[in-house]
């Protein structure tokens, strides 16, 4: 990182915190703080919804995933536009007309207090832990780029976000998200253009696409009906649909964004903006990763992309290491020649020769990683998140590098801000105001800021301890994935049926989580399908119990 890059990054951080602080300076009531006075335009909410969803790991991890696995990940987003249309027609009008602050508040209006409290509590538990991971994961990568310690990176990101969210609440979240999403879009296009222009002179863009296609990197549509295979078209369309419905329809971090619309129309349009933009955006990010994959055919990539692992490996001296590294260097040259031959002729024989060379290269790379793991006692070495980082650090010109790092910060901070704000809202609205009653505007606003600081601090604490909490965090994340489809089932009962009641919904929710837990533990069904399993179980069991045990109102 050169001085110019640091200047760009510092300018971004100072600018976004100041802007967030300034834009949220006029909050007087909790309506302003949590729902931005319900006066936001659709395009701002739409960009905010998008910014909340895209995290730093989405940006750097997805490009890395495309490098190794191609476009397959795109199928997860194919269901998003359908989910947006369904939400616009079902949940959004209910939320909007109920004039609620949280999605769970609607469940009390429809069912009872018990259902609201349980779902809100589960949201706080799951999202509260997950936000620590949202902060920790990019800090590991960013600390290697910036040369700072992980705690320092965590504190810079966490505290700067807490500062403006505490001051301005949802208004600051949405307007800073607009700026951050704009920076992210600029960054995405800059990376794509750099990836195209960095191709060698004798390799055209079309040649690059030909190499990527031969290597199977464009195989986005897999029609295999298997439930265990990751990212099939059916898993993406059906499982992904339930995932997107749950995330955008039942997760407070998203619901709160579109509840800030000045009308139902504004809220709906914000979701439809995402329906139009999300798939192209993911396509561009994945295409960038694929072009990075092609680029490294002509410039030798390190066998280990993680700089820390590479430094550790340098001190290892063994014949196995020498052998693995020699094989890797030879495999690279072989693949480079095969790729050039393929671009020159595009013949079938050249394609076969290239595929064999690519296979040998991948095996040689795995060979180096295996030697590294054995020599250092490391298990499960995975450097997917470091591939794009290595590329930008070595190939992006100074100044632009600072901007790309600012993009990674923006992606992380835009997710964090929405999550801090939604956690504070659920705590304040579903618990403090629900059980203690509304206070004066000044008291409620003060408490809302205290909750924002609390959840921000909690996220920093989890992130700082993440190394030690490893397995505990994994458990909570797993628990979150059990919860996701199941909570959608509760909302389906609320909106799609007349006879479902709170008892049925609550028992159904726990039954759904238990069934997903069993499926996850005892089968190899891919996680995208868990959402369908959870939602269906809750709906069926919840409805059956509601019929068997009618509510008191219904009985009377």
């Amino acid at each position, binding site marked *: 990182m050169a001085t110019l890059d640091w200047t760009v990054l510092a300018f971004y951080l100072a600018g976004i915190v100041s802007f967030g602080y300034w834009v949220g300076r006029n909050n007087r009531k909790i309506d302003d703080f949590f729902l931005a006075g319900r006066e936001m335009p659709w395009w701002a909410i739409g960009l905010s919804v998008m910014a909340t969803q895209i995290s730093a790991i989405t940006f750097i991890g997805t490009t890395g995933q495309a490098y190794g696995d191609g476009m397959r990940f795109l199928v997860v987003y194919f269901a998003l536009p359908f989910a947006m249309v369904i939400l616009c027609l079902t949940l959004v009008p209910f939320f909007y007309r109920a004039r609620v602050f949280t999605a769970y508040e609607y469940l009390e209006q429809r069912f009872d207090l018990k259902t609201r409290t349980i779902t809100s509590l589960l949201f706080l538990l799951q999202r509260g832990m997950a936000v620590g991971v949202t902060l920790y994961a990019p800090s590991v990568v960013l600390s290697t780029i910036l040369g700072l310690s992980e705690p320092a990176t965590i504190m810079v990101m966490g505290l700067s976000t807490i500062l403006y969210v505490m001051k301005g609440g949802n208004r600051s979240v949405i307007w800073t998200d607009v700026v951050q999403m704009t920076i992210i879009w600029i960054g995405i296009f800059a990376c794509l253009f750099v990836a195209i222009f960095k191709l060698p002179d004798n390799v055209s863009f079309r040649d690059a696409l030909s190499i990527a*296609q031969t290597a199977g990197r464009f195989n*986005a549509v897999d029609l295999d009906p298997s439930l265990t295979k990751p990212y099939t078209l059916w898993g993406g369309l059906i499982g992904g649909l339930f995932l997107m419905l749950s995330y955008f329809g039942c997760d407070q971090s998203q619901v709160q964004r579109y509840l800030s619309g000045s009308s139902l129309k504004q809220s709906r349009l914000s979701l439809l903006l995402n329906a139009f933009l999300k798939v192209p955006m993911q396509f561009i990010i994945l295409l960038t990763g694929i072009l990075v994959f092609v680029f490294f055919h002509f410039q030798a990539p390190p066998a280990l992309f993680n700089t820390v692992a590479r430094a550790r490996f340098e001190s290892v001296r063994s014949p196995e290491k020498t052998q693995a590294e020699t094989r890797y260097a030879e495999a690279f040259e072989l693949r480079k020649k095969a790729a050039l031959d393929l671009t020159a002729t595009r013949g079938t024989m050249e394609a076969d020769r290239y595929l064999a060379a690519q296979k040998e290269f991948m095996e040689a790379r795995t060979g180096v990683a295996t030697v590294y793991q054995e020599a250092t006692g490391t298990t499960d070495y995975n450097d997917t998140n470091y591939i794009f980082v290595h590329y930008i650090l070595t190939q992006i010109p100074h100044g632009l590098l600072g901007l790309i790092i600012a993009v990674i910060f923006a992606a992380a901070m835009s997710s964090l801000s929405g999550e801090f704000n939604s956690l504070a809202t659920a705590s304040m609205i579903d618990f403090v105001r629900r059980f203690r009653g509304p206070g004066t505007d000044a008291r409620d606003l003060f408490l809302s800021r205290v909750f924002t600081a609390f959840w921000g601090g909690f996220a920093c604490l989890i992130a700082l301890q993440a190394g030690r909490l490893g397995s505990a965090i994994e458990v909570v994340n797993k628990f979150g994935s059990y919860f996701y489809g199941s909570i959608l089932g509760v909302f389906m009962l609320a909106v799609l049926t007349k006879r479902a009641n709170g008892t049925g919904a609550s028992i159904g929710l726990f039954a759904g989580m238990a069934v997903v837990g069993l499926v996850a533990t005892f089968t190899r069904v891919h996680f995208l399908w868990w959402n369908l399993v959870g939602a269906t179980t809750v709906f069926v069991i919840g409805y059956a119990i509601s019929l068997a045990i009618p509510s008191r109102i219904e009985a009377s």
Partner: protein
Amino acid sequence: MPAPVDESDPEVVPVFGTWRLIYASVIIVNLAAMVLVYLFSGFRF
């Protein structure tokens, strides 16, 4: 019991004019994108 959903929004939807048209466009554009990606993956560059 859920409140009935009122679809009659008096405001005009920007660019598309009606809600029905914007929903149909989202679905058609997405289906077209899926077909394009499928063709893209099989195209001989």
